[in-house]
Structure formats: C-alpha cells, structure tokens
C-alpha cells in the first residue's frame, strides 16, 4: 500500500501539484486521468522519487519520501521495490529480446548470466505471451511487441509497486488490450500497487479499480469509475460535453456530444 499525504510539488517556484492525499491499495489498479499538463506524470515521477517533494510525504511499507532532496542509499532503497514503465518504447539497441529482459535484473547480474536468470527471463516472456520472440533483435519488433518486452523487463525486478506512464498510447488495439490484461492479471496475482496514467478514458474506466481524476494540480475526484464518472465531472475537468453511458458490465462509457 502507498499512502500520499498532502503531497505538493513545485517547479521553478510555482506549485504544479498540491494537497494530494490518497491511499493506493495493493492488488488493485489505480488509474490517473486528466487533461494534458495537469500533473499526472509529475505525480508518477514523485512516486518514483525522481522529483523532490515541496511538502507532504509518500509512504510505502516502512519507507517514506519526505520533502527535500533524497539521494544515495535511501533513494536506492525506495526505488528497489518500484518498477516504472515509460511511455516511450524506442529501443535502438543491438540486443535480443531475451537480453533486454535479463537487464531487468540489473543489480544482481554478474559478468556471466546464470541459467536461473535466463530461465526467469523466459518465464516473464511466457507470461507476456511472447516467448517465441526471445531470440529476435528488440529493434526489429513493432512498438506493441517492444512494449510487451519492456514490461517483461520491469517484471524481472519483482517489484511491489508498478508505475506505468501512458503505456499503451503508442500501441494498436490488440496490444493495448493484451498489455492491460497482463497488467491486471499480474497485479492481482502478485499484489502489486499498480498506478497507470491513461489518456483513453474508456480504457481507463474499463481497467481502473480506483480512478484518480487530476486537474489543475489537484485530485478532483477519486473512487471506482462507476462512483465518480459523471457528465459534470468530465465537463469540469476537460471542458468537453459528453454523455455517460454504461457498458454490459455496468462500467461507464463516455461519448462526446457533437455540437451543432
């Protein structure tokens, strides 16, 4: 579980995120949505320990991030349990898929890769359903396949917290679904605290156990998609008029109202 208490972040003296308090439970998918430039990625980077907190604290297990510079060992300890998957899937490097996944175990690798590590890497690739790509060059894969490989790589870290920054925005529908399904399955099975920034709202409503709506540097609403999504909230945060429908499972689906 991660607890954020009154978290605030400043950049060049200006507050870009403030008063963020929430509790992120393990085994659940927490999806952050909100307009561009409102602090979604900032919040993710703060949880990664990459940005300095101006106020408040973030607690994960018995470790905590406090305002002021965090460096060296304490930051290392914090990051040890956290995996982070950036949006960018470029991997212009002459390595095979298997080698890329092995790199996920960076801290424990010696000059010789032992059979156990190779076996663990292959297991992750099997879980991601791409074991057949093991011997291929990473640069020769499609963006969607690369993202699956890179996810297998961060899984090698055996994290407790999984942070994903718009992981599917460059992927086609098939890979979007297979990656998010995989994330959901692993989150449940391994008890991760999974936090995903998503742009596609309908996709967000479908996969979120807990939805965090961020706008103007503040959490505007939090809860299950069914609880929080209303036409008013979308109009307030995005400035767009929508109609909120329901899918077969009762999850909200939004449809823009086309202006006349």
């Amino acid at each position, binding site marked *: 579980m991660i607890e954020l208490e009154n978290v605030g972040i400043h950049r060049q003296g200006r507050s870009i995120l403030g008063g963020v308090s929430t509790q992120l439970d393990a085994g659940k998918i927490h999806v952050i949505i909100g307009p561009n430039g409102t602090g979604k990625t900032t919040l993710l980077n703060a949880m990664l320990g990459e940005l300095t907190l101006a106020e408040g604290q973030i607690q994960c297990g018995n470790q905590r991030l406090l305002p002021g510079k965090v460096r060296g060992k304490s930051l290392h300890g914090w990051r040890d349990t956290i995996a982070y998957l950036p949006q960018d899937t470029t991997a212009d490097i002459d390595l095979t898929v298997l080698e890329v996944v092995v*790199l996920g175990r960076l801290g424990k690798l010696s*000059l010789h890769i032992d059979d156990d590590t190779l076996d663990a890497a292959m297991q992750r690739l099997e879980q991601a359903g791409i074991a057949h790509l093991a011997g291929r060059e990473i640069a020769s894969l499609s963006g969607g396949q690369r993202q699956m490989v890179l996810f297998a790589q961060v899984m090698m870290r055996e994290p407790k917290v999984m942070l994903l920054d718009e992981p599917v925005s460059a992927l086609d529908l098939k890979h979007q679904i297979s990656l998010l399904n995989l994330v959901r399955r692993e989150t449940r099975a391994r008890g991760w605290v999974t936090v995903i920034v998503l742009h596609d709202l309908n996709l967000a409503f479908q996969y979120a156990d807990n939805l965090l709506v961020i706008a103007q540097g503040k959490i505007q609403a939090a809860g299950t998609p069914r609880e929080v999504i209303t036409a008013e909230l979308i109009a307030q945060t995005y400035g767009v008029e929508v109609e909120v429908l329901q899918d077969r499972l009762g999850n909200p689906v939004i449809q823009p109202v086309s202006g006349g």
Partner: protein
Amino acid sequence: MTISADRSEAIIAHRARERKRWRYVLLFLLITAVSLVFDIATGPSMLSPSEVIRSLTGIGERAAMTDAIVREFRLPMALVVGAALGAGGAQMQTLLNNPMASPYTLGMAAAAGFGAALSLAFGGFGLHPMISVPIGAFIFSMIAALFLFMLASMRTVRTETIILGGIALLFLFQSLLSLIQFLSSPELSQQILFWLFGSLTKATWPTLALTAVVTLVCCLMLMADSWKLAALRMGEMRALSLGVNVRQLRMKILIIVAVMTATATSFVGVIGFIGLVAPHIARMVVGEDQRFSLPMSVLAGALMLSAASVLSKSIVPGALFPVGIVTAIVGVPFLLWLIFAPRRRTL
C-alpha cells in the same frame, strides 16, 4: 520446476550466441596480435615477422641487433593508444547515446592540442618538452572534460546539450590553437603542427607503461559497470527505473574516459577517428552486450591504430608519415561506409 521445451531451446540459443561472440573476440585478438607483429616489423630497417616473433618470445636464434630494435625502438604504443581510444569512444557513445560522440568530436583532443601548443609556445615553462607537452595536453584535455562534466551534472541538461557543448569546445580550442600558431615563429608553428599530426614514435618505455596501466585499470572499471551501461543505452528513465543512479554513473564514466583518453592523447598527439569508428565495428560484430562490445572496441581500436601505424611507416619507405593523417584519410571513407551500409540485425 520443469523447464518447458521452448524455454530451454531459447536458453540454448542464447548460449550459442554468447559462444559465437566469444569466438569473434578471440578472432579479433588473433588479428590484433598479427598486426602488432607487423607493426613491430615495419620501420627504417625492415624485419621479418618471424624475426619479430623470435625476438618477442626469446625463443630461437636471432641477431643482437634485432633484439635491440624490437625492444628499444619498436614499442607497441599503437596497440595501447588504439585500445584506449577505442574503449573511450565506445563509452562516450554509450554515455551520450549518440553514435557521433568520441573524445575527438567532443573537443577533448582539440583541447589537448591547444594545451600542447601552449606549452611549446611558452618554452615548456622551464621543463623538458618531453614532459611539459604531455602535461599541457593532459591538463587541457581534463579542463575540456571538466566542462562536459559540469554540463552533465546539471539536472536539467540533456545529452544533446552536452554534445553541443563538446562541439563548442572543439571550435574554441581549434581557434585558440590557430591563434597560437599565427602568433608564433615558423619553427615553433612547425613543431606544433607535428605534434598535432599525432606520432607514435615519441613513445618511451615509461610513457608506454603509464599509458598501458591507466588504460587497463580504466577498462576494468568500465567492464565492472557493463550492465549499467547497457541499461543506460535503453534510455535514462529506463535505466533509472532499473535501479541505475544515472547521474553518478555518467560522472564516473566521464572521468574514467577523460583520464584514459587524455593520458593516451597527451603522449602521442591528436589521433582522430579511432575513437569514433572502432566502437561501430565492435557493435556490428558482437551487438551491444557490453560484456562483448567493450573488449571488442578495445581490440578494434588497437587493431586499427596498429594497422595505421604499419601504413604510416610504409607509405613513404624510410620516412615517417604522421599516423594521425593516415587514420583520418582511411577513417573518413570507412565512416561513410558504416553510415550507409545496411545494418545487420542478427548474429
């Protein structure tokens, strides 16, 4: 747990790839050794390769004269300097994630040239030129590195900025160098020019030993970080998320590379293209697993400079053609070929 057939097949395939890469490294080691023999054999008095081998190993009959030539005049400086430049270039490229990065293109060589020229212009500050010139070159090379280092340590600076900073250094030190040459006497200008061309004949056993030890220690330190460097090539954020302290790693590698290349450059002068091209050859042959690509860059650099040294001694028989000119002339078409050649993806 039973390992599925697919899984063990993939692991076997991976092991086969590793073995193949080791074989390439060994092959390059062999070719480099051969080029070393030829480098030693070539010179004002030509020796045969078998004479060189007998003299090096101390086995079999040989003339005392041959031993004297091999052991006192034909030092394997090309091998060591080439290795240092190859490794330095490889890690500059890794560090800045840019295939055009090298100690030469980032202005460290130009700074060394300026330092050498300055020291020559001021009469070596009372020291013998054999000592003052390398010291001047080393100091200015480290000043250039320090500037890059400061850029790299700024939190908001991106790698592109560091490269542009390096190019700015290159122009700055080149123009300062031109200024010194413009202001100095023709004799001094000639001396400076000769240093700038790069020459391997200035080596002595102590300078060779120093360069070799520095290069070896630096390469071992780089090797120890080989996994982190591979992760860094996947992008800073990704490396960071894999637990790499990116800023600290950048600093450390920059210092190692600066010390290694500055040491090599300060004794032999400006030798371009080895640091740029050798890493490309290494990656083409063994990919980017740093466990293989780093030793391969070392070998490719050593091989290229040894071969260039042989060429420089045999273009005009009896005379010495500056090796820096040879590497540049041979290096340019080679670089173009590397850029335009279709990329190999499988090994």
